[in-house]
């Protein structure tokens, strides 16, 4: 277990280093010129040169990389050109909003995808299986933007069931005292149930937009993993000895299927993180994705670089956690090879 952990940790660390290098190279070396891009087509060469000097772009690439890495170690990700504030502050102050949205999306994806996937597997080849698979295909075929628009039109404009796309709380509602930065959680912790209710209502549509697409992926994974365990030898043994069907399902098949689902859950996490720029813009959600969108508009490469880096690190960290959980569940990894 310790060896497995160290190995996963080392791989994650290498990946983070690679990530930093790739992000740096993409932004600094590719043919685009950050300074020219920043100033737009009307800028004179003098203006561009001046800005290049200010951004350190006239230095050799190794010096730039060294500065950048030294900065990262101190937690300094550079300065956002568009706002003049440190990139790290800009992004990390918005992190809780993004986490709240992604967590809501993940919850919906799991709540929809798991039962539907198990249902589809248990009724393989029948109508309900076909319906579940159709749902999965449709869920992964809709552009998140379009799905979000449909939800807004149907459930806000027409039905009036949910608040409009105006962010985390209705305009005029003060946010709860900040403890974690997650409004739902903070509301619960401070006993402010009105805020809990309001923020959950505001969260519903954006989380559904993210979660529906992700639920399709969860459904497919759960379905194929459950089908694999249906034909597995241990299932046959349990059935042969008359172990009750519910126990075979929950104790034998589901636990084994979970292992397979876990290894593929990274995909879902990637989907949730990747989709957040669009969903945050559509719902005026004040998260990191919204900052990234603003950075796109103002050609703020420093900020975009920081965004890509933070998302990448979150992604790697979550995958490491998945590996950890895997190691805890699976005795083949927890205990290693032969002992008896």
């Amino acid at each position, binding site marked *: 277990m310790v060896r497995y952990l160290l190995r996963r940790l080392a791989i994650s660390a290498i990946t983070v280093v690679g990530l930093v290098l790739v992000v740096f190279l993409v932004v600094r070396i590719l043919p685009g010129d950050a300074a020219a891009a920043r100033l737009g087509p009307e800028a004179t060469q003098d203006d561009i040169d001046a800005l290049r000097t200010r951004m350190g772009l006239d230095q050799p690439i190794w010096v730039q990389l060294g500065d950048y890495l030294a900065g990262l170690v101190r937690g300094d990700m550079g300065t956002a050109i568009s706002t003049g504030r440190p990139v790290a502050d800009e992004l990390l102050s918005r992190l809780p909003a993004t986490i709240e949205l992604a967590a809501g999306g993940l919850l919906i994806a799991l709540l929809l995808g798991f039962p539907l996937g198990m249902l589809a597997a248990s009724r393989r080849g029948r109508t309900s299986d076909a319906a579940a698979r159709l749902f999965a295909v449709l869920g992964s075929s809709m552009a998140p933007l379009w799905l979000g628009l449909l939800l807004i039109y149907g459930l806000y404009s027409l039905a009036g069931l949910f608040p409009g796309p105006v962010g985390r709380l209705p305009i005029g509602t003060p946010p709860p005292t900040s403890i974690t930065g997650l409004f739902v959680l903070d509301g619960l912790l401070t006993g402010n149930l009105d805020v809990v209710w309001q923020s959950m209502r505001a969260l519903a549509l954006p989380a559904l937009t993210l979660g529906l697409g992700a639920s399709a992926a969860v459904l497919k994974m759960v379905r194929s993993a459950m089908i694999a365990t249906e034909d597995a030898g241990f299932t046959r*043994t349990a059935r042969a*000895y*008359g*172990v009750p069907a519910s126990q075979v399902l929950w104790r034998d098949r589901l636990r084994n299927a979970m292992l397979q689902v876990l290894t593929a859950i990274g995909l879902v996490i990637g989907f949730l993180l990747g989709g957040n720029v669009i969903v945050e813009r559509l719902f005026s959600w004040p998260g990191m994705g919204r900052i990234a969108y603003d950075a796109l508009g103002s050609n703020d490469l420093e900020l975009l670089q920081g965004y890509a880096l933070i998302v990448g690190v979150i992604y790697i960290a979550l995958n490491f956690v998945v590996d950890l959980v895997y190691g805890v569940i699976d005795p083949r990894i927890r205990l290693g090879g032969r002992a008896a």
Partner: protein
Amino acid sequence: MSATRPAAETTRRDVPLLAIEGLGVVAEATGAPILTDVSLEVAPGEIVGLVGESGSGKSMTSFATMGILPRGVRQTAGRFTVDGEDVTDVRDRSVSSRFAMIFQNPRDSLNPLMRVGDQIARIAALHQGMSRAQARAEAVSMLERVHIPDGERAARAYPHQLSGGMCQRVMIAMALACRPRLLIADEPTTALDVTVQARILDLVVELTEETGCGVLLVTHDLGVVAETCDRLNVLYRGDLVESGPVDRVLAAPRHEYTRYLLESANELEDTDGAA
């Protein structure tokens, strides 16, 4: 291999432990028959061989007997009787008739996420109505009964920590925890090392003699049959082509396919040198 077993004294065939009559099984998707009119009997304390090449329907016969035909395969004809009583419509023959089964790939047949002791204990609890603690003790004693030296320690192991032969012993211990009247052994030694094969077979024979349970031994290996079985059934393309006492069938096969099987087995033995 080990010494030949003396022919069983149980020649009493009037009320067999298990009788399969006219079993027919088809693949649902195509309607293609997999088994056609298969009939055989097993008496208490008797080891009955069922041989045939792969795809001949040997395993399907044993799955059908346990009542665990895989998805897409359906029984269309035949009945099962236990002690003369019809159990064709009984869903859970394992518990009600005390049937047990061991498989070709012992490690795959065990849940990789459960300690083997727990896997045996839950079967013991289910079949003998034991409490958790009793079942747990039963698991350890069954492990020791199949000659695993430290039962306590083995019970705590996960399948991946055990060798293939050990896993098959665990499977046999699980079978014993049912107090079985019939043991179906589906190619129990095929996936094991040659040196281990003989020991597992000896164990099966020994336990048959001790417990008096009947055994249906499914194999493609005529050598195994000659060593262990009392009677022999030959399956060819889903059809039972020959059955009778082992000595008679091996000495004077009546069906062409049995002769063919024997010849190929002899050739193998010759090329192997001493078997």
